[in-house]
């Protein structure tokens, strides 16, 4: 049986419509007016033990809300979550003892104490055997390079240092499942790399189930084999990361800053339609989307450079948001997205 089972999971928030002014404030007390906001809309998925799953979507898509229901922080409005056979918000103690979690914007460590004290408290709270705890601590210290950090009070740590310590705190009690909600937010490449490698490593070696939300595609590419994409509270894709990469993630967009373009350019671009899509053009700016499996960026440049003076260029990778947008468009068209994608090349 899968370690996480989600059936028709649904959550709606009640939001108190605040009225303006003093009278409004008084009115609020007696006649609070609520509107409801659906954050997660009947989603289904199941996750096997040892999987590493990326859970992605645009801002406000409902990722954090889902994670909070999986961890038992929030009670679902309807639907069902089973984690290792337990209902998280009902069997809180049982469920919490096998999970770990990181929420990017807040800390689970004691602000005024060094991380090591938090780890020790966690050891006591989760009844981790001393030997195992020491082993984990030394492994993690090495992998995340924590040696100097764990003796400094948390409030004096930088964001990246804090996050490394935070990650260790989520794994130190050998949880079966770890939820990571934007663990790389605001970090530089070096720290991101360290954290990704760590998660990958632990996921492989100890077959800890990992669920990761992020806005950085690279986090997912390096850590996860499977990805679930959510938009507007609904699952729009659930499958292998490769498929996404091959179909939608293969596009790049180049922006050229140009001068002195010859009139022939339009004709030339027209002849290359097969490789270059969604061309937009103004006298000083050309934007071209291309399929990097069919044509390279330098070839694109070679096509354009005879007809224009290229002043500057930038290449953009697709963001999660744009992938979701593309996916969503296809959903509305009610077509299988791979098929649709082939058609996409033609315009």
């Amino acid at each position, binding site marked *: 049986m899968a370690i996480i089972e989600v059936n028709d999971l649904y959550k709606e928030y009640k939001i108190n419509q605040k009225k303006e002014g003093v009278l409004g404030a008084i009115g609020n007390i007696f006649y609070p007016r609520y509107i409801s906001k659906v954050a997660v809309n009947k989603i289904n998925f199941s996750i096997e033990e040892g999987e590493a799953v990326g859970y992605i979507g645009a801002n406000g898509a409902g990722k954090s809300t889902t994670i909070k229901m999986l961890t038992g922080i929030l009670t679902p409005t309807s639907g069902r979550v089973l984690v290792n056979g337990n209902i998280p918000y009902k069997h809180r103690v049982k469920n919490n003892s096998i999970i770990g979690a990181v929420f990017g914007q807040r800390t689970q460590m004691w602000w005024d104490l060094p991380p090591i004290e938090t780890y020790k*408290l966690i050891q006591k709270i989760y009844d981790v055997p001393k030997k195992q705890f020491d082993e984990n601590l030394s492994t993690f210290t090495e992998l995340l390079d924590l040696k100097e950090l764990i003796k400094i009070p948390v409030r004096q740590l930088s964001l990246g240092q804090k996050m490394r310590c935070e990650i260790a705190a989520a794994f130190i009690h050998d949880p079966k499942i770890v939820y990571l909600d934007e663990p790389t937010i605001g970090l530089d490449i070096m720290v991101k790399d360290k954290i990704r490698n760590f998660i990958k490593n632990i996921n492989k070696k100890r077959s800890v189930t990992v669920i990761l939300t992020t806005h950085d595609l690279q986090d997912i590419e390096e850590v996860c084999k499977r990805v679930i994409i959510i938009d507007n509270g609904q699952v729009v894709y659930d499958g292998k990361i490769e498929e996404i990469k091959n179909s939608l993630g293969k596009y790049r967009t180049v922006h050229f800053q140009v001068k002195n373009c010859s009139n022939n350019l339009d004709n030339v671009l027209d002849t290359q339609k097969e490789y270059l899509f969604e061309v937009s053009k103004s006298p000083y700016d050309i934007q071209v989307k291309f399929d990097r499996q069919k044509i390279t960026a330098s070839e694109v440049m070679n096509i354009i450079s005879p007809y224009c003076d290229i002043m500057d260029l930038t290449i953009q990778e697709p963001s999660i948001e744009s992938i979701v947008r593309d996916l969503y468009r296809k959903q509305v068209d009610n077509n299988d997205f791979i098929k649709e994608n082939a058609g996409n090349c033609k315009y």
Partner: protein
Amino acid sequence: MLFKYIRLYIEFFKQNIKIMLEYRADFIIGAMASLFMQMSGIFFVWVIFKNVTTLQGWTFYDITLVYGLLMLSKSLNHIFFDNLWVLGPQYIRQGNFDTLLLRPISPLFHLIANRLQQDGIGNFLLGLVITVKSLYELNLNLGIKGVALIILFVVSGGAIFAAINLITATSSFWVVNSYHLIWTVYSVNEFALYPLNIYHKAIGIILTWVIPYAFASFYPANYFIHKGYEQLSFISPIVALVLWVIALRVWRFGIKNYTSTGS
């Protein structure tokens, strides 16, 4: 189970002591300030008794006994349950309550164990001095049984304070600013600093049956100095127990309504 919680509380306690030592200066000033505030209260009673010999049949030391017992109960609550005051602003509004819900222990236990309020220690010591001095001056021979009873009364009193604060603090799950509700209800305890029989009957009824702070001072004191209210002395622990049962129900209901914050 209970054993595990006791063990854990000791661990939390150790950590809290470490934090306290880190902010040593704040500890001293905080303890001094609240000590000073309480002293001005007892000074008030002292000045009053420079003008009269008894207050409706109560002598100076009768009243300081009531006063001292309430201070002891109040400071127990202050030292050990102070985090309830900040449940709204520090935990629920900022979403830090999430962290408490992620541990395999009771979130309420976690919340309470998370903080030890140093400011209450000065008051506890002053309360102790006042109580002991009053008992001594009143020529009461307590014996082991009496001492055990005092401890029971003070612990029950502390539990009454904590339970009432827990009930009002749970409102943080619904309202944005719970501080004023907590404070309003809490402030009613000031009545219990003095013997109930100086007030209008209605006030006595409220302090006995509605917001029963009188069970933290007036009724226990009556066990030692017989002024005609002894029959209610012994139910202090029962009142504390009932209040906690109610408070825990309210709390559970509150947690169900927790909606976290967006992130």
